């Protein structure tokens, strides 16, 4: 970091000393915290039935603090944009994938996809939800790429981009439509909250999955050149 980034021992020791004092301070601060603190769990449980889902975490993520999640989808997309702005895909290595990998992926990928959809569905009531599902989906995608699979030329353009922004845009669409109905941004009516959340989550799952895969492959598709 530092411009005078030398590994001279003095610098090291100085740094260590500083860090130790800082650690000490933080530890002291932590220990000074009250032993019991319910945080917001009370309010959450109170409003849970209004939120449309039983899983409190999902409720917080997609209802109470949905706005955070919304922006954070933005972050994810942004990261992808940034990566793409840095250059195109590194050349795919043409070595055929090993036998094991090949069969394994053939076996795993369907399971992964299935699992993802399950996670997505169960997220409403139990731990799970869009991000977990999305990452599992991504894992499947990564496997695919490792086996040397490439996205069809035709799909690399607009369709891919649509899939990538689906999560964010549907999220926003829901919010805006709600605003049109005279409610606040992302203020779901409790009656349809469940459905809306599921819709958003589904879209989010797809986008997250694909985005992560795209991030993994670390560059924009060749077809973006022209």
């Amino acid at each position, binding site marked *: *970091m*530092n*411009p005078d*980034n030398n*590994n001279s021992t003095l610098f*090291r020791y100085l*740094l*260590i000393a500083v*860090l*130790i004092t*800082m*650690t000490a301070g*933080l*530890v002291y601060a*932590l*220990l000074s*915290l*009250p*032993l*019991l*603190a*319910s*945080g*917001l*769990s009370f309010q*959450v449980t109170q409003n849970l039935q209004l939120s449309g889902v039983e899983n*409190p*975490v999902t*409720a*917080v*993520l997609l209802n*109470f*603090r949905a706005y*955070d*999640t919304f922006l*954070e989808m933005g*972050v*994810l997309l*942004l*990261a*992808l944009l*940034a*990566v793409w702005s*840095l*250059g195109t895909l*590194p050349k795919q290595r043409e070595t055929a994938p090993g036998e094991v990998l090949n069969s394994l992926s053939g076996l795993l990928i369907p399971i992964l996809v299935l699992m993802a959809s399950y996670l997505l569905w169960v997220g409403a009531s139990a731990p799970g939800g869009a*991000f977990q599902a999305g990452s599992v989906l991504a894992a499947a995608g990564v496997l695919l790429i490792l086996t040397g699979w490439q996205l069809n030329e035709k799909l690399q353009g607009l369709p891919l981009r649509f899939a990538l922004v689906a999560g964010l845009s549907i999220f926003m669409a829901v919010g805006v439509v709600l605003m049109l109905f005279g409610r606040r941004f992302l203020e779901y009516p409790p009656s349809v909250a469940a459905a809306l959340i599921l819709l958003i989550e589904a879209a989010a799952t797809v986008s*997250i999955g694909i985005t*992560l895969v795209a*991030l*993994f492959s*670390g*560059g924009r598709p060749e077809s973006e050149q022209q």
Partner: protein
Amino acid sequence: MSAVFVYSLVGIGLFNLGLYALIIYPHLLRKILAVNIMGSGVFLVLVALAGRTASGVPDPVPHAMVITGIVVAVSATALALVLMLRVSAATGQPELPEEK
């Protein structure tokens, strides 16, 4: 002293270790890893302290925050890694070039 605090203290430790590594090691990959370690330290504190409820059912809000945080961290890391590749491609060594 409860497990909650043990975890959170570990978190603090990770945070500072990461910071140390970040400052000391010139290699970019190490720096990026260091940042991630710091991040996990923060998340650990965040989650661990959520367990201080009387009912024992942890406070959900921090969990949500952590998930958000993780996604942010993932995105940042991805960008960092790609950027690192570009840098090392441009400068020939995977380290920060001197001030220009």
